[in-house]
Structures are given as structure tokens and as C-alpha cells.
């Protein structure tokens, strides 16, 4: 669009890609989010110093914080997102449920009011008993599975409330929670929306996000394999009706649960762009981020409503995390010593990770959103499988082997999934490794590891046999560390190796 970009960064993000790609970059504090990315004052200050016209809040941290949107507005900055009022209304899960109900859209049974930090345990227990077990505790300000707990029986309620509040407080700065009935094996289906400042609201073809681990989406796809054109019309119509009823603008997503009989219930709204937006972009060709900016500028949403409801092919996204799937998905922060991302036709890799990137302990461990497009679901899965086979990381563990395994599961291939499917499946396999290389693979690994060691040592021997000096023209034999390096090993490590190998 020809716009300049200004980045902000916490201490541990000084070297990150968003800083390097920006025209200007401003330091806003130390690595803990509360001291930097959640500091509205510092963010607004940086924007004003830079002379920026507008602020894009991304999809984490303060992206759904009405205080931040209001602070931008009050400072004369355009906030690229909904109005503070819309965020406050739809960002509160309980208020959003009321809005949906009033717009005539069914909602999942649950508490009408949030429980603040001072709510009495007894009051919560009474509400829980009324709704019935099993139930879900959810953070009012939540998202991404954070601050969410399943409670099977009354005795687990207090502990679960405490844990959900603590997570919600840390992640969103708001410990308020609410309670909702847990449907039996529902699917999670959601509708992307765009709304302009002139009253036009456009719903997009739905996304299917039922594959979740501990309430966190791990694979998203579009269209949903189980949504018929008739159901799509109802679902997207309902989503647009809620958005229109509250005068919603810019990008947002209405989440629904779809039960086994094809009935859907409004679940909550994300008043921001979502992690999984690339797959919608792939099947519609619409650049959602560009449209967010155009809408914020006051442009009219002139997309063809029928076209954005008619998917061209099928797209899938895998969220690749710095977690060790063979150790119960334990976070695996650290330095990425080598990375070969996936590429190729109809593959999109939205990632900030590179060789040398330090994955910090402070933030969400998402390192790549890998998306694949196909003319149909089978082709999209085949391309994703190929892309995952290409994806190689050293230094940290990632969920890539888990995805390779998951894409081969018969229930996934048959698209016969619900929101608890993955957790049940993982429980059954009891920590069995996700990948089992064969004898041939071992033999190849042994030989190549030995060749690498030999080559490294050979280079050191070569050195020992040769004399070097400055050339006659003052030229020094010199190899820079390079932006991508093939050979060569740190001198002192080589030396150590030689001595070790003697």
C-alpha cells in the first residue's frame, strides 16, 4: 500500500523480524508483557513520537482492549480495528452473548453476568449447579484457550476458578470469568466479518476450528467439511445480523458451536483479526489486513458479497509451536540453530522465526502459521503433508512431527472431528512418540553425522598443514558470517573438536 511502518519492541524482541522490517522502531520496555506490550501509555507515546497516523494492534496483547483503542482515539491516532464501544461490548463474553440473544441468534446456555475477582465462591457454585456439569470456565477477556478450564464435578470448581483467573489476569490483565454449559462433541465453526464505516457488514465463508488441544486451536480449515450451502447461509446470516445490531466495524470473527444435529449456537466474538486469517485470504483472495486499513481510512467495502461466501478451493492452517510433542507438549524455548521452512506452490508460511532466532519464554510459543491451499480438501491435505515433510528445525523442538501424525489419522481424513476429539485421541496413545524413523533412516543418519564430523576435523587438519598471511594487496582471506551459511564452524569449536578427536 506504500505506507511506512513503525514497530515497537520489548527488550528480548530487539532483533526480531518485525523490528528489522519496519522503517522505524521504538523500545517500549522490558520483556515481560506487563512492562512493554501491555503498556498503553508507552505504545501511544511511541506512535505520537513517530508521527504515525494509525495504529494496528495485531492479534495478541491489547488487540481486544477497549482502553487501548480509546487511548489511540483520544491521542488523535486512527485505531485500525473496531470502536472502543464495540470492543467493550463484544469483547465481554457475557455482553456479547446478550447481544446475540437480542439479535435472535441462539447462544450456549451459561451465566449472564461475569464473576469479578471479588465474586463469592458460593454464588459461583450456585450458578454452576444451575447450568449443570460438565461445564466450562472462561475468561471474559479471553481468547486462544487461555484462562479456560473444563470442570467435571463440583469439587474441582474452586481450583479451576483460581487457575483460570490467574491465567486470565496474566494474559489479558482482567481476571473476570464466566461459566457456560459444555455441549456434547460439538464442532467449532466461525465466521469472519468485515464492516465498514458506512454500515456495510460482509460475512465470509466459515472456518472450521474443531481440532483443539486444551481448548486451543491447532488446525483450522475453510470451508468446513460439514457445512452445506444452506447452513452456510444461515450461519453467516446470523453472524452478520449480530454484527449489524451492534454497529460493528473493521475485522472480527463470530464463533459458533455446531452440535451433532446441525444446530449452531453463538459462542463468543473476537473483536480483532485472528491467527487463522490466512486461510480465509487463500480461498477468497481478499487481503484482510489491507481491508482493515482501508476501512479505517473510511473507504467503502465494495467486495462482492456472494464471492466472499463462495470458497475457491480449500485451505488448511497448522499452528507450529515451539513445544515438544513427545514431552506432553512442554514449551521448548531456546535458540533455533538451524531452520528450513516449507515453501512451494500453494504453501504460505507466516513466520517470524529464522536460523538464529531466540524463542523467548515470555510470549506465546507460536513460531509459524503454515497454510496450504488445494482445489479440494484432499489436495490441500496432500500439500500440507508435503510442506510439513520439508519443515526442519534444530535447537528447539516443534509440533511439526505431531502434525505429520495428525494429518494421517483416519478421523481427520474423514473430517469426523469435534472439539474434544484431539484431547481424547492424545490420551489414548499415552505418550507414544509421534515419529518412528526406520533402520534405513538410522543408518543414513549415522553415516552423515560421521561425515560431518570428519569434514569438520579435516578442515582443521588442513589448517595445520598450511601457512597463511596477509596477501600482498593487504587483502585478508575473509568470509563473513553471511545471511545464510553453508559450511564452516566456529573456529574455537573446531579446534576443540580436533583436540577431542586426537
Amino acid at each position, binding site marked *: 500500500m506504500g505506507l511506512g511502518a513503525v514497530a515497537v519492541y520489548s527488550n528480548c524482541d530487539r532483533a526480531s523480524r518485525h523490528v528489522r522490517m519496519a522503517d522505524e522502531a521504538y523500545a517500549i520496555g522490558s520483556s515481560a508483557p506487563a512492562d512493554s506490550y501491555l503498556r498503553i501509555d508507552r505504545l501511544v507515546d511511541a506512535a505520537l513520537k513517530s508521527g504515525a497516523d494509525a495504529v494496528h494492534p495485531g492479534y495478541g496483547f491489547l488487540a481486544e482492549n477497549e482502553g487501548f483503542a480509546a487511548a489511540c482515539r483520544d491521542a488523535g491516532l486512527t485505531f485500525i480495528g473496531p470502536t472502543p464501544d464495540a470492543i467493550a461490548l463484544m469483547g465481554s463474553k457475557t455482553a456479547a452473548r446478550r447481544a446475540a440473544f437480542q439479535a435472535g441468534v441462539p447462544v450456549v446456555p451459561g451465566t449472564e453476568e461475569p464473576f469479578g475477582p471479588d465474586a463469592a465462591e458460593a454464588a459461583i457454585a450456585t450458578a454452576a449447579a444451575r447450568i449443570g456439569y460438565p461445564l466450562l470456565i472462561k475468561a471474559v477477556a479471553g481468547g486462544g484457550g*487461555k484462562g479456560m478450564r473444563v470442570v467435571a464435578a463440583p469439587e474441582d470448581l474452586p481450583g479451576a476458578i483460581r*487457575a483460570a483467573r*490467574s*491465567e486470565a489476569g*496474566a*494474559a489479558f490483565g482482567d481476571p473476570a470469568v464466566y461459566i457456560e454449559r459444555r455441549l456434547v462433541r460439538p464442532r467449532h465453526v466461525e465466521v469472519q466479518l468485515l464492516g465498514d464505516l458506512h454500515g456495510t457488514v460482509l460475512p465470509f465463508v466459515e472456518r472450521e476450528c474443531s481440532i483443539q488441544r486444551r481448548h486451543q486451536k491447532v488446525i483450522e480449515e475453510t470451508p468446513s467439511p460439514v457445512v452445506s450451502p444452506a447452513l452456510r447461509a444461515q450461519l453467516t446470516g446470523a453472524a452478520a445480523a449480530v454484527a449489524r445490531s451492534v454497529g460493528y466495524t473493521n475485522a472480527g470473527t463470530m464463533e459458533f458451536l455446531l452440535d451433532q444435529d446441525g444446530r449452531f449456537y453463538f459462542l463468543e466474538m473476537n473483536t480483532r483479526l485472528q491467527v487463522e486469517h490466512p486461510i480465509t485470504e487463500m480461498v477468497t483472495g481478499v487481503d484482510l489486513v489491507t481491508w482493515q486499513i482501508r476501512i479505517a481510512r473510511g473507504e467503502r467495502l465494495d467486495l462482492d458479497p456472494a464471492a466472499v461466501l463462495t470458497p475457491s478451493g480449500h485451505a488448511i492452517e497448522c499452528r507450529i509451536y*515451539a513445544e515438544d510433542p513427545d*514431552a506432553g507438549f*512442554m*514449551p*521448548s*524455548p*531456546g*535458540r533455533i*540453530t*538451524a531452520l*528450513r521452512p516449507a515453501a512451494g506452490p500453494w504453501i504460505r508460511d507466516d513466520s517470524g522465526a529464522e536460523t538464529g532466532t531466540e524463542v523467548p*519464554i*515470555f*510470549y*506465546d*510459543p507460536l513460531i509459524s502459521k503454515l497454510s496450504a491451499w488445494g482445489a479440494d480438501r484432499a489436495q490441500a491435505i496432500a500439500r500440507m503433508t508435503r510442506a*510439513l*515433510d*520439508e*519443515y*526442519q*528445525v*534444530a*535447537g528447539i523442538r516443534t509440533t511439526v*512431527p505431531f502434525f505429520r501424525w495428525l494429518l494421517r489419522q483416519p478421523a481427520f481424513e474423514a473430517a469426523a472431528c469435534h472439539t474434544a476429539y484431539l484431547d481424547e485421541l492424545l490420551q489414548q496413545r499415552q505418550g507414544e512418540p509421534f*515419529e518412528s*524413523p526406520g533402520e*534405513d*533412516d*538410522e*543408518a*543414513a*543418519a*549415522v*553415516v*552423515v*553425522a*560421521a*561425515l*560431518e*564430523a*570428519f*569434514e569438520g*576435523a*579435516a578442515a582443521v587438519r588442513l589448517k595445520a598443514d598450511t601457512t597463511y598471511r596477509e596477501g600482498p594487496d593487504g587483502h585478508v582471506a575473509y568470509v563473513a558470517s553471511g545471511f*545464510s*551459511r*553453508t*559450511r564452516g564452524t566456529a573456529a574455537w569449536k573446531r579446534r576443540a573438536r580436533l583436540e*577431542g*578427536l*586426537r
Partner: protein
Amino acid sequence: MTFDVEVAGRTRTVEVASADGVYRVVVDGRPRTVDAVRAGATWSLLVGVRSREVSVGDDGDGGLAVYVDGRRLAVRVTAAGGARRRAARRRSGGEHAASAAGPMSVGAPMPGRVVAVLVAVGESVAARQGLVIVEAMKMENELRAPRAGRVADVRVMQGALVDAKAVLVVIE
């Protein structure tokens, strides 16, 4: 040159020599024909006409991540004899893990921040009782007692940043 190469719990002794750009490799005494060339940042291996792409990355801690046609294997290369010495030391009891009867350390499984310490020195704990909550990457992880016992030592306080494998609590 001879190396010990450990993969999937098994150590092989590998001898490598090269002449005129061709490698001679002997694995556990058996010579192998290896058509291997470095291909940019990876290796191309032809075993007969079967083509394999193998890449090697540093996995930290002396380990290697070796990808064979995309499948990851953890490999450790040492000078010949190194694996034997390490195994011998393991047998003589130099390792971290103690027997089931002795004191038992509960360590941090990953770097993170201690959100809460749930026990104090001298307290009795049941098996699987929560001891410490560590937060990393916005998720809380409760570390539990591996067996019933008494808390002999608590080595962290709330708010502390801990490294992977740091001992947090000792149970006896």
C-alpha cells in the same frame, strides 16, 4: 578417523576416510559404499539408486538434529571410545536420577517463571500432589510430587526465573 555415533540408544563405531573426493566408510567393521555429496546446506546420499536427503543441525548440548528425508533423529557424535566412557560413568552412579528409595529432585522441565510455591520444607506430600507452578509462554504448568514423602528442600521462591533442569524441590 573413527567416531562413536549414537542414535536411538545404540552406538556404532564409524571409520571415515576420503580420497579424491570419494568417502570410504566402515560402520561397526563393515565397509560401506557411500555416494555422498554436500548439496548446499544438506547432504545428498545415494544408496544404490535410492536418494536420501540428510541435513544436520546443532541441537545444543552437543546433540545433533539429523533429518533424513524429513524424519528427525537425535544423534550424538563423539571421538571413538567416548560413548564407552560415558556409559561406564553412568554405571558408576554419576547420573542425576537417584534410586526410588533415596531423595528425589523435582526439576524445572523448561525455563520459566515460578508463579507459586505450594509446599514448605518439612511438609508431607502425597504422590502427584502439586509442588510448584511454573509459567512459560503464558501457560501454567503444575509440577507434581513423583511419589509420597517429605519436602527436604525448596530451592526457589515465587517470582523467580528458573532454567531448564534447575532443581526446584527435593523430596525424601
